[in-house]
């Protein structure tokens, strides 16, 4: 591997940008592709994008060549707005499933180290926090406050991002009101509401299971839409 390729891989890691390294196994030639960039252009782009989505590296064989497709994805993240009861179950579950979890709640009576000892917490306003966190295609965003003045700014920021999952807590009626408030925005169908897979969840722990199940489904099976 050329030094320049190694340096490019390391720069992408620092910038949390997805890269795919292609190695021709016969000649040893290597090429670096950035499939998430809007101007990405490559004969194998579709294949590379699905490898990125599946987070799967493998040998792509054609009649006269063998190419190792190696995916370097940034880590999975879950951003939760609302340090509520459900979050107390969702945080450790998501961490077990490999997510770095970030909790946003400006109400320090909710979002504090006593209630959430092992989690990154920010007490900033959601839109300010989201600006710093910059959700990417490996990020899920979950809104659990029930409070439009907290949830809505985070929703607006999420819809402008590449987040692979956006879910908002609330009944069908609450969600309809939410969609009405946000009706000037595009891609509202990206929001899952009511949140979570329908598994008949009743208590906060079960709701956390249904949310993580839905996130997993979008991560592994792709877009709901």
């Amino acid at each position: 591997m050329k030094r320049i390729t190694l340096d490019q891989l390391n720069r992408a890691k620092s910038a949390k940008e997805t890269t795919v390294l292609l190695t021709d196994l016969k000649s040893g030639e290597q090429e670096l592709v950035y499939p998430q960039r809007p101007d990405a252009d490559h004969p194998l782009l579709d294949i590379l994008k699905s490898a990125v989505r599946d987070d799967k590296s493998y040998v792509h064989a054609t009649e006269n060549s063998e190419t190792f497709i190696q995916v370097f994805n940034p880590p999975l993240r879950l951003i939760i707005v609302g340090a509520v009861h459900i979050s107390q179950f969702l945080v450790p579950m998501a961490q077990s499933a490999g997510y770095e979890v970030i909790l946003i709640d400006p109400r320090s009576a909710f979002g504090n180290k006593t209630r959430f000892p092992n989690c990154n917490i920010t007490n900033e306003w959601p839109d300010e926090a989201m600006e710093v966190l910059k959700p990417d295609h490996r990020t899920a965003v979950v809104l659990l406050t029930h409070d439009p003045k907290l949830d809505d700014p985070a929703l607006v920021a999420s819809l402008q991002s590449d987040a692979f999952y956006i879910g908002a807590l609330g009944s069908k009626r609450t969600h309809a009101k939410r969609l009405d408030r946000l009706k000037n925005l595009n891609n509202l169908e990206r929001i899952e509401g009511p949140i979570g897979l329908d598994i008949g969840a009743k208590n906060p722990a079960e709701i956390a299971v249904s949310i993580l199940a839905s996130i997993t489904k979008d991560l592994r099976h792709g877009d709901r839409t």
Partner: protein
Amino acid sequence: MIEPQVSETSAEDLLKTAARWLDEGRQVALATVIKTWGSSPRQAGSIMIIDQNMTMLGSVSGGCIEGAVIQEALEIMDHGKAGILEFGVDDEQAWDVGLACGGTIQVYVERLEAA
């Protein structure tokens, strides 16, 4: 079989370490799992870095083949021609030593160029 301690450091962190090693003037080889069959403990894409003093970080198996990979890596550091290594544990042998990992694994080993 006693398994050596294998690092779970993520692939990219290892590449940052590899760059540092190169800056320090060490010779460095990169070993990458490219294919697995059967039950292998490390997926395709797992990497290990090796320097000329056989310092290794990362892993390409649960510790079963690292020794052999290091030997090859030393040669590849020398002549610079990348190669594919294949390792297998056939089922019978696996049963004999009581190993569940009756897998086959292909590892691509290449030299990291200093410039």
